């Protein structure tokens, strides 16, 4: 059970993530951002709940939709923004961008542009942690779509065989790009896909796959940060105690397009509106108030988070780009002889 302070802190983090991405969409319209970017608007709770239940030395491996994960870990907002803007002061000097952003010192082992690409890396990190007899664990985020990659099955199988300390976190938002899970995930129990009307009490789609590998799987409401935290905390505790890998499937929903400003032809506006009624972020002020947190405190927390994003963005926008040498150097690690 979270204390009021913890819940308020989580709320602040979730506002930061939302404000950060809203700022990003604004920047996209100005042409200052190149390429594309995947927003997690509506999915903030799964990132904040899981990362909140981890400790700072646990290793996080993220995917293409990673802003929530890295901001939940507490990475510097301005350096993240600078990275997305391609500036030298960004975490990776502008080389990585949104989908390839790493902060090794903060044990954030990178977002990943290859769907399913992070699972083996996290499994390998967990292998090293076990080999080094560390009490840290590895945590990897991936989507429902990624659970159809071979790497998902190979990694679960191997992690269970080798009893590795890794938590597989599937953020199931019902779609992989435009394709609903009913078209991508075969089920043994014949449960049918219904147009999602909520994320609470929903049957997991990826959880049954864990059972095939003898891995404990838990399904939780991914938009309820308290539910996420409780499920993650329990799983992480068991893994840290040497219980082997686990899978956590968090039912969630992105309230935005798959990337940038995509027209979402594959779902109805009605579906989106229904889902918006239980936005994991919007529900929090009421819950905090119910628990006796004063309204001014809640508002001040949100306002501070938004102001910090704004300020961080301005600093990032003022940062310099790298030059030719920054683009061409550093392909190989120089050997210290």
């Amino acid at each position, binding site marked *: 059970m979270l204390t009021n302070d913890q819940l308020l802190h989580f709320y602040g983090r979730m506002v930061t993530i939302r404000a950060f991405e809203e700022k990003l969409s604004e920047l996209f319209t100005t042409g200052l951002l190149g390429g594309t970017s995947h927003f997690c608007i509506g999915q903030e709770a799964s990132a904040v709940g899981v990362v909140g239940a981890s400790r700072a030395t646990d*290793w996080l*491996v993220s995917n293409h939709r990673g802003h929530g994960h890295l901001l939940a870990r507490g990475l510097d907002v301005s350096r993240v923004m600078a990275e997305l803007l391609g500036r030298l002061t960004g*975490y*990776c*000097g502008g*080389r*990585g961008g949104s989908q*390839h952003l*790493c*902060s*090794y*010192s903060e044990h954030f*082992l*990178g977002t990943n*542009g*290859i769907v399913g*690409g992070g*699972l*083996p*890396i*996290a*499994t*390998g*990190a*967990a*292998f*090293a*942690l076990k*080999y*080094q007899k560390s009490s840290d664990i*590895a945590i990897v985020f991936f989507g429902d779509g990624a659970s159809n990659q*071979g*790497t998902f099955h*190979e*990694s679960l*199988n*191997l992690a269970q*065989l*080798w009893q590795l300390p890794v938590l597989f976190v599937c953020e199931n938002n019902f779609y992989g790009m435009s394709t609903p899970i009913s078209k991508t995930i075969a089920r043994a129990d014949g449960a049918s896909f219904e147009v999602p009307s909520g994320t609470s009490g929903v049957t997991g789609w990826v959880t049954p796959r864990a059972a095939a590998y003898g891995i404990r799987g838990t399904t939780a409401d991914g938009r309820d940060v308290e539910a996420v935290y409780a499920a993650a905390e329990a799983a992480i505790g068991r893994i840290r105690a040497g219980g082997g890998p686990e899978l956590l499937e968090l039912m969630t929903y992105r309230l935005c397009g798959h990337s940038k400003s995509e027209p979402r032809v594959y779902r109805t506006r009605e579906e989106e509106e229904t889902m918006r009624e239980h936005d994991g972020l919007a529900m929090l002020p009421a819950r905090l108030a119910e628990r006796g947190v004063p309204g001014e405190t809640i508002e001040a927390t949100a306002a501070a988070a938004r102001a910090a994003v704004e300020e961080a963005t301005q600093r990032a926008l003022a940062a310099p780009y790298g030059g030719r040498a920054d683009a061409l150097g*550093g*392909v*190989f*690690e*120089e*050997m210290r002889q």
Partner: protein
Amino acid sequence: MPEIYYSKAVNEALDEELSRDHNVVLIGEDIGKYGGAFGVTKGLWDKYGAERLWETPISENTITGIGVGAAMLGMRPVVEIMFMDFIALALDQLLNSASKLHYMYHGQVKVPMVLRTPGGAKGGYGPSHSQMLSSLLVGIPGLKVVAPSSAYQVKGMLKTAIRDDNPVVFIENKRLYPQKGFVPENDYTLPIDKAIVTSPGTDISVFCYSSMTPVCQAVKLALKPLGIDLEIVDLVSLQPLDRETIFASVRKTGKAIIVEEACLTGGVGAEVSALIAEHCLDSLEAPVMRVGAADTPIPSSLELEKFVLPQAEDIIQAVKRIRDYC
């Protein structure tokens, strides 16, 4: 100096690095008691056991990714891919993770892993177990690609590769495994970024690597009585190429042939040839020649295989074509 098999030289390098550095682990299919498909890891299981040799399910992409993840956290994994053709299954982690992470994360991480794999045809293994896919790898920035040709080279270079802080694809060769060579008794290492003039000569530079080096050496001996003196240069490192050694040899002889077991089209030979054209045109006295495999998959039949793979006779034809060119 003891004379040992190429495969044994690999084994000794692994053995010595396992005992030298606790962060070194071997990861691969059937590498334990069985000793690997070609017996390369024989005996290491009894000596080091399950704590250092990690036998895996048949999951090439994931075991490569495990190597990457473990390497980023300070280990030195040596991943074995049983046949080079199977790197197709590991290519995502090799191409999108191992090779890019150091650069794209701006030097925050390093990936000191070695991916060992035997390439090349040994006679009868057929289309999915015989290719030399070196040229597939040299176009991937961030990978070091090394292809040693003798017991001496393979032992000294594998040790260097394991100690290197970058991902190294270490191409062994099935045809070389049963060939013997002398290796020093002492603990030695060899650079993995330098070509080696294995046999100096004056008339034509012959650049080769892996299984083709012994073949070129034999051709050199065969042509000696005809008054043709070949300079055999083993490229060793395919990425990066040792340009200085290549250029120095061409400037001396004025003629060049590149010989490889990979397909001719888009091969390492094409790259070396282009470099020579760009940098040594003034020294060239004849067209640069390439000898490589035909652009076909490798057939299983022993009789058919030899039509596809480069033969000593093909090298001799190339030599004759440019010897008297003017």
